[in-house]
Structures are given as C-alpha cells and as structure tokens.
C-alpha cells in the first residue's frame, strides 16, 4: 500500500511542481475527516466493553487538476473501526486512486470510479461514509460524447471490497440520447425527450462442486424521460438473467424491476408520484455476498427520508428480492397575505407511501417461484402518512410541525421474527427563536406512540447557535413507555461544534441507543454505546 502511495505521489508531484511555474497552474484540492469515539461500558443500555477504549475512522482526499488531467487519491484509516461499521474496514490504506484525462469529446478514467446508469437499477457504484458503503469499481471507464445530446459510456472493473476486490468482474455500457439536443429543429420544442439504455454483465467463476451456476450474468435496462410545461415523466425498466445467489436462495428465476415517476410543479405548488415493482433484482459481483457487500445495482426505497430522530426509529429499506410500492407527495405554499399564509406565508407538505410484498407462487424446481407482474402480495412491508406544516410567525419566531402515521414490518425489514407490524404515531414540533441578531435558540419536541415493541418515546432537544461559528446542543431521548420498567432509559447527549469556513470541529458526549442508521435507503445497525466523540472535517 505504502509503495503504491509513494509511486502515486512521485507521479503527480513533479507535474505540480512544474506547473506551479507556469501561468496556467494546476490546482490541488481536498478534504479530510476524522471521527473518534471513546467507549464506556454501560450495562443498562447494553453497551459492551470495547477492548480498545477508543476507536477512530479517518480519511482524506486529494484531487489534483491541471488542464485536461485529473488525479485523485483517498487515504483511509480505521484504527480500529468504530462500533457499528464492518470490522473488515481495518487498518490503513489507499483504497481509492484514479487518473482521468479529458480530451474534447472523450473522457478516460483509470483506477477507481463511481458511476450510475439511469436510476441505478442495474448499476450504481457510490460511497456513503456514514454507512461504510463504498462499492467503487476499480478498472477503466470511457465516456464519449460523439455529438451534442449523445453520451456513451463503457466500463470494466472489479468492485472494492473493504481493502480488497470482490471476486467478480463487472462490464457495462450505457447510452443516453437527448432528442432536443441532437436535432436542432427540436431545440426550442416545449417537449423534452431523453432516452437511454444500458447493459451490465458480471463474470464470476463457478467453483461449486454440485450446481452449474451461470458464470456470466447479464442485466439490461431501458429508460425514457419526457418533460413539458412543469410535467416530468420518468420511467425505467430493468431485466436480469438467471443469477442464483445467497440473497435469493440460489434460485434460477430471472429478475425484473420497473420504476415510474411523475411530477408536476409550478411556483408555489408541487406534486410527486412514484410507483415501483422489484422482483429478484439483487445484483452483486459475488453471488455469495450479503448485507451491504458488493452491490452492483441500487434499488431506491419507496419512502421519504426522515431526519428527526424519532421518525427514524423504524426506517424502511428497500427489499431487492421483491416488493411493490407507491408513494406521493403534495407541496403547497400558502401565499403571503392569504388567510392561511398570514404575513409570511406557510408551507404545507402531505405525503403517503405504501410498500407490499409481491405475490409469489412457489415452485418446487430451480426457479423458486413465479410472480405475475401486477400481482401485489398480501404482506405489508411499510406504510407511512405524513403531514408537515412550516410557518414563520414573526421576524424572530418560526415553527415546524410534523405528524406521521407509520406501519413498519419489523420482521421483514430487520430479518427477525415474532415482532409483526409496528404501528406508531409520531408528532414533532421544531421551534426556532432568534434571541438577537446571530443568536438563535432552537427546540425540538418529539414523541412516538406505539403499543408494540419498545412502547412510547419522547425526546426534547435544545440548540443554541451563534452565527457563524458556534453550536451548543443537548438532548434527551426517553423510552418512557417501555413495557419493561427497567428498560425505561434516558439516552442523553451534549454536543458542541465550532465551524469556521470549511473547517468544522465537533465534540460531544452521549449515550447512543441501539438502532439503525439509514442514508438514501441503505441502512446499517449501530450498537448501543456510551462515550465521548470527536469529529473534525475540513475541505480546501
């Protein structure tokens, strides 16, 4: 690893040193992030003794650009990795480095890269540091734009697997064609149409002594996007060939997925609708991989992403093995001066989401099951209804009120049994009061009410901020309705943060409940912990 780094630095250093003497200098930018936490044993919340006492995740990126040339490298260190991250993130290394060259219509990247075809149904490599997800491809990618409105992409690579590579090779091509950009006569048209198609194939050797497993698995997708006068319609269909895997129980059934979304908006009004069907679309560069490992594709979750703490206690994650869902949202701004809007206007958002299983008719052969395309299964995975209001009352005071009703299939979504569907009501008030210029006090009051699982919760948060540098936050999250009186625990936390330009330093102490952290529909379990934490980030 170190030799690789030295080689890389030697390669780019002379270029930078030379370029510094020219008029047209190269530029170096980058960032770094350090997150450390101390761990105290806390038997009440189930925080175990951590032998190291202190754990740390850190990384830094350097990107160098000069003219058409770009090179980047990321240093990562896990000494040892924080609780809740996969322990295979271990030690120090350089798991991400690339060089890229742009020549007029052609862009070539060698090394690691992130890419997404369409909405990601058959290929999306990305990183989400908070989740420990990084499935970047390491290999080569070419992007070619032969004419205005035409983009062609081709790639070959192996996926990052912690500090190694996954066993499979991923190959893919994608093309996107904008009718309006390509044909000058449509340039001024009120209707915009873009079509695209992609194909991805993975190769993994079959070492199974008994079964004949397909070594090459292909997936194809087609998409179209049409927009006109405030409307946008997008749809994508994907198909996958036989791909027996640990995720689907080594069945030979093919996979398919359909996404359809329609939105309409004009000033002060927005409407969004989305429907999805997914059937056996897990797609990984190792057929034996599980959890968040080596995903080639990405199945977006059919639900809004929530950020208030109690609204995220029961987070929904998409089920690539099969689900059917739909969701909608209405956004409306009451005008200033109207009866509802008052002096400053008011913002309203109404949302709904519902996800069910797909109907599976079990077969006793290698295909596993059949499923009709429009057959919705009986089992509910997730349901959510939300009402959100936001209003400014005066120059100094504004408030946000949210209400959610949720049904959450804990058994399916967390891979457990015996919990059933958790029904909960959640109420949130978020109030901001400007004490004097640049001094602001913000309060959150939250409650989650349920008869099931761990019962009722309440939370209070206070945050005092002094622009532009200081933040002080304290909160307490209290599981007061836990059926077991001994588990009626306070999870309290205090934090302070200093922010200056692109540097941010945060110090805190707190008890963290055992739960699930989700970003963009991908989740990881975080164990209970008690301790001090520090986070430093900077960009330059």
């Amino acid at each position, binding site marked *: 690893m*170190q030799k690789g*780094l*030295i080689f890389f*630095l*030697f390669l*780019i*250093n002379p270029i*930078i040193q030379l*370029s*510094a003497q020219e008029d047209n200098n*190269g*530029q170096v*930018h*980058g*960032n770094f992030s350090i997150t450390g936490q101390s761990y105290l044993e806390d038997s009440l919340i189930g925080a175990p003794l951590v032998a190291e006492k202190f754990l740390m995740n850190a990384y830094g*990126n350097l*990107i*160098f650009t000069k003219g058409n040339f770009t090179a980047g490298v990321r240093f990562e260190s896990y000494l040892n990795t924080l609780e809740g991250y996969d322990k295979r993130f271990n030690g120090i290394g350089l798991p991400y480095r690339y060089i890229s060259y742009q020549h007029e219509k052609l*862009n070539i990247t060698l090394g690691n890269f*992130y890419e*997404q075809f369409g909405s990601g149904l058959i290929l999306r490599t990305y990183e989400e*540091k908070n989740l420990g997800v990084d499935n970047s491809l390491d290999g080569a990618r070419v992007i070619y734009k032969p004419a205005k409105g035409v*983009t062609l992409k081709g790639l070959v690579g192996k996926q990052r697997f912690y500090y190694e590579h996954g066993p499979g090779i991923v190959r893919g091509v994608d093309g996107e064609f904008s009718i309006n*950009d390509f044909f000058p006569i449509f340039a001024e048209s009120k209707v*915009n149409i*873009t079509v695209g198609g992609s194909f991805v194939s993975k190769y993994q050797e079959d070492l199974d002594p008994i079964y004949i497993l397909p070594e090459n698995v292909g997936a194809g997708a087609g998409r179209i996007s049409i*927009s006109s006068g*405030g409307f*946008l319609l*997008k749809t994508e269909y994907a198909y996958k060939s036989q791909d027996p895997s640990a995720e689907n129980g080594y069945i030979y059934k093919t996979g398919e997925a359909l996404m359809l979304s329609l*939105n*309409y908006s004009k*000033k002060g*009004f*927005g409407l*969004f609708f989305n429907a999805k069907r997914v059937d056996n679309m897990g797609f990984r560069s190792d057929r034996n991989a599980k959890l968040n490992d080596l995903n080639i594709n990405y199945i*977006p979750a059919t639900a*809004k*992403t929530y950020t208030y703490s109690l609204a995220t206690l029961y987070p929904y994650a998409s089920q690539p093995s099969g689900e059917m869902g739909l969701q909608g949202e209405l956004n409306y*701004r009451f005008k200033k001066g109207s009866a509802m809007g008052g002096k400053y206007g008011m*913002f309203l*958002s109404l949302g709904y989401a519902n996800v069910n299983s797909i109907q599976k008719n079990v077969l006793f052969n290698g295909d596993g099951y059949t499923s009709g395309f429009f057959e919705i299964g009986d089992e509910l995975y997730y349901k959510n209804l939300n009402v959100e209001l936001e209003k400014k009352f005066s120059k100094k005071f504004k408030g946000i009120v949210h209400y959610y009703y949720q049904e959450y299939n804990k058994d399916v979504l967390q891979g457990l049994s015996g919990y059933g569907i958790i029904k909960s009501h959640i109420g949130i008030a*978020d109030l901001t009061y*400007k004490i004097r210029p*640049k*001094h*602001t006090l913000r309060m959150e009051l939250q409650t989650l009410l349920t008869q099931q699982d761990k019962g009722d919760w309440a939370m209070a948060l206070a945050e005092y*901020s*002094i*622009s*532009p540098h*200081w*933040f002080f936050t304290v909160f307490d999250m209290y599981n007061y309705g836990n059926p077991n009186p001994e588990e009626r625990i306070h999870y309290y936390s205090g934090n302070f943060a200093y922010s200056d330009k*692109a*540097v*941010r330093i945060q110090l805190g102490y707190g008890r963290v409940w055992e739960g699930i952290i989700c970003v963009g*529909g991908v989740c990881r379990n975080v164990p209970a912990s008690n301790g001090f934490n520090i986070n430093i*980030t900077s*960009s*330059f």
Partner: protein
Amino acid sequence: MKVLNSVIILLISLLLISALQAQEQKFSFPSVDLKTLDGKTFNTSEINNTGKPVLISFWATWCKPCINELIAYDENYVDWQEETGVKIIAISIDDSRSIDRVAPFVNGRGWEFESYLDENGSFKRAMNVINIPHSFLFDGDGVLVWQHTSFAPGDEEGLYELLLEISK
C-alpha cells in the same frame, strides 16, 4: 518503514505547499454532467455569471439545515441580486430515492435559484464536499473567496457583507 513514512510526509507537504500557491487563482470547475429539474443535461464547466459573483450551495431534500439555509437565501435573493448581481446555484445531492421530489420541492417553495441534480454525488466529490450544507462563493473573476459548511441562522448576514465587499 520509517524511511517510507518520511518520504510520504515529505511528498504530501510538497503537495500542500503547491496547493497553497494555487489558491489565489481562478477556480477551474470540474467538468461534471448534472441534470436540470426538467431532465436536461448541464455541464458544471459552464458555470458562469458574466463577471458577477456566483454562490453554489449543496443541499438535499432530507437535510434540515440545508433547507433553512436556502430559505434564508431565498428571503434575501431579490435584494442581493439587485445590489451585487450574485447568482445562486443550488445543487441537490438527492439520489434516485428522492431525486424526483426535488422539482416539486423547489418549485413548491417558490425558490428561484438555478437548480441542478447531482444524483450520484459526482460534483459533490469533485468539489470535496463532506457534509451538507456546504456553500462556495466565487467572485466575478471566478476566484473562490469563501466556503462554509453547516448553517446557523444569521449566517446570511455575514454572507451579505462578504457579497458587498467582493462586488465593489
């Protein structure tokens, strides 16, 4: 091992020194394809405000402080534009889960920023953004004069002073 480490430290220091030398110059925008709210393609190398300041803000529909920041910008945008000519560009990093919520959200609130979608975070990565909100201010010559991560109510006042200063 020690020698290797020393060499690495030396090389990184050299890199940082050259980085510092490079900070005062015109920022060269990375070339990344984004989508507009109505599905067209926009390349970030075309970011331009004909000699006036540009403010770029990274946000997402699920990021509360980002929304507060953009509300604060929105409340002042007309005045700022009149006095300084600034153009605000809002880059949403919503991924395919929430990307189609962005247009109804932005238009539903009546925001008039130039809005683009960075669906897989390519521009975010190229700009070294770690957490959002993260704003960048470029003066009329395209020099990066300020960047800031996180948002506290009142930050917009400091930004306004800075805008006045650079548009003198």
